[in-house]
């Protein structure tokens, strides 16, 4: 008994444990605590299969599941001046940026792409909350301007998925200036009479909500997304009372007339296709166009490959 447990089993154990517990195979739903297998979760668009809680989804994964056949072309975003203020808090801003790039495998907090959804040509932009809380700085401003410019060029609607903790403090006043800058981008679409649809995802706050995220022709939110200008904590500190249940959540905003729709992530693609085709005077979608595309493997953009050895494609579902 003891020679087996002491000499044989440890070796066997180590063999199995190495294979059995690689990281990130299981995700615990933060809402209901259910353990979700990674493949099952990805197939369900990062929505908990047991309680419907909408977890974060990376812009790249979202695009793979949004565009027909998972095919899209990235729209180039001009590089802004790096670290315009020479900002330093406990860390230098360029160091924080590098850490975020390493962690996400992305260059910055927004991804812009063109492609088709249900054979409807669109331009889409998606904000990445995992990249420095999706904060809006010069790059995000440039991305939105690039997206609007491309949409006007191609005469396509723009679909924007928002997610942000607000402005990028490390860019100081220049992050604040993205509020008027991105508003100019929205005006470009408005003047070209092209639809601008905003999908607000959890969380969308601060200067982002107070600019491009609230200026859509159609405003759709994902269920239970926090959408606000001032966060609940700030308000509780100011008014010194507890806020009601569900305050500043998507359904609450819908009730208060601030949104057009609250749509489940799995129904979102269909919603967008139907609405955009009407606004673009296209014939009704054919049923065959509607089912979500089969996930296919998409080569990630070569984002400063040397600096980001562990780039992100690990989560991208591969072709079965």
């Amino acid at each position: 008994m003891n020679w087996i447990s002491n000499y044989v089993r440890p070796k066997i154990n180590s063999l199995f444990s190495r294979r059995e517990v690689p990281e990130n195979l299981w995700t615990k739903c933060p809402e209901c605590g259910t353990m979700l297998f990674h493949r099952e979760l990805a197939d369900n668009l990062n929505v908990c299969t047991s309680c419907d809680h909408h977890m974060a989804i990376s812009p790249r994964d979202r695009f793979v599941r949004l565009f027909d056949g998972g095919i899209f072309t990235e729209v180039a975003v001009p590089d802004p001046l790096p670290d315009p203020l020479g900002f330093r808090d406990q860390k230098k801003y360029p160091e924080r940026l590098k850490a975020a790039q390493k962690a996400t495998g992305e260059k910055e907090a927004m991804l812009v792409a063109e492609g088709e959804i249900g054979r409807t040509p669109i331009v889409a932009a998606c904000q990445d909350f995992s990249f420095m809380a999706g904060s809006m700085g010069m790059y995000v401003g440039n991305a939105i301007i690039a997206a609007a410019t491309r949409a006007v060029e191609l005469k396509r609607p723009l679909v924007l998925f928002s997610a942000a903790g607000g402005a990028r403090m490390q860019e100081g006043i220049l992050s604040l200036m993205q509020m008027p800058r991105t508003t100019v981008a929205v005006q470009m679409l408005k003047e070209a009479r092209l639809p601008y649809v905003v999908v607000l995802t959890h969380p969308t706050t601060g200067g982002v909500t107070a600019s491009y995220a609230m200026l859509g022709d159609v405003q759709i939110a994902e269920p239970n997304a926090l959408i606000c200008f001032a966060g609940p904590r700030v308000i509780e500190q100011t008014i010194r009372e507890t806020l009601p249940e569900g305050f500043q959540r998507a359904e609450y905003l819908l009730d208060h007339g601030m949104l057009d729709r609250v749509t489940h992530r799995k129904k979102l693609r269909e919603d967008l296709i139907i609405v955009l085709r009407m606004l673009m005077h296209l014939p009704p979608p054919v049923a065959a166009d509607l089912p979500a595309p089969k996930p296919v493997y998409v080569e990630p953009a070569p984002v400063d490959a040397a600096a980001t050895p562990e780039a992100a494609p690990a989560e991208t579902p591969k072709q079965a």
Partner: protein
Amino acid sequence: MTYLEFEKPLAEIEGKAEELRALARKNAGMDVEKEAAALDKKAADLLRDLYKDLSPWRKCQVARHPDRPHCKDYIEALFTDYTPLAGDRNFADDHAIMGGLARLNDAPVVVIGHEKGNDTKTRIERNFGMARPEGYRKAIRLMDMADRFGLPVITLVDTPGAYPGKGAEERGQAEAIARSTQKCLEIGVPLISVIIGEGGSGGAVAFATANRVAMLEHSVYSVISPEGCASILWKDAEKMREAAEALRLTAQDLLKLGVIDRIIPEPTGGAQRGADTAIAAVGAEIATLLKQLSGKQPADLIRDRRQKYLKMGAKGLAA
């Protein structure tokens, strides 16, 4: 006069001079004028030195000084026929925002600004200059009217930020700010903005997206308050000095960054020590800027404003 924390040594000297003079008034025949005058000179020198090179955090304190002239003072002194126009036609009139028709050097304009109030009663009434959605919607309505009747718009910015309250959020604070910024970009009349105290984040940008932006010498304009920034990035609200430094929120830095166009000098010791001088300087600057823009076609005004904001951020500070 309310003394700021860094003005304590000044308060002492000025207090001593005052004491001496009070003593002399009580005891006839006592001559203290020579000593008092020396103290006066010492105080004046100290004041000049203190204000010669204010640190960003001190500028924040000066910008928030309770005795600093506020929007109401500027409107009363610079404009004639000021006719307040109230309400957003939806819900309420926001007293944090003053606005209406007025004449500047006899020419009709629309003037809009944040008013903080100057005593407990008026501060509460004005909600400390923190607007609710109704304030921004009133401003949108007034800007729209200015556009239709060809009147230039002048905005006076002085706010800690938009009000973070339950009702404000329910009634769409974010949407109101977004639409106000959008309206600023849409109107075909000259839009001039002067930051007279605090330019607090989105609450300021909603009025300050202008053809020309001027700032008083010791006013500040920032994406977040130094205290807020310190508590988020330093996890310690007491690090506001470092945060104020890092945020580059002074008029001098913002001019270098191309975010503002003009700096209006303040009297020695700040606008709170010479309200009339500061107000007159602001009036003169507005007149100059208006002149620069007069005769421009509506389409050009809109295009120039847009180009200005699209280009913003092209040059950094290269610290």
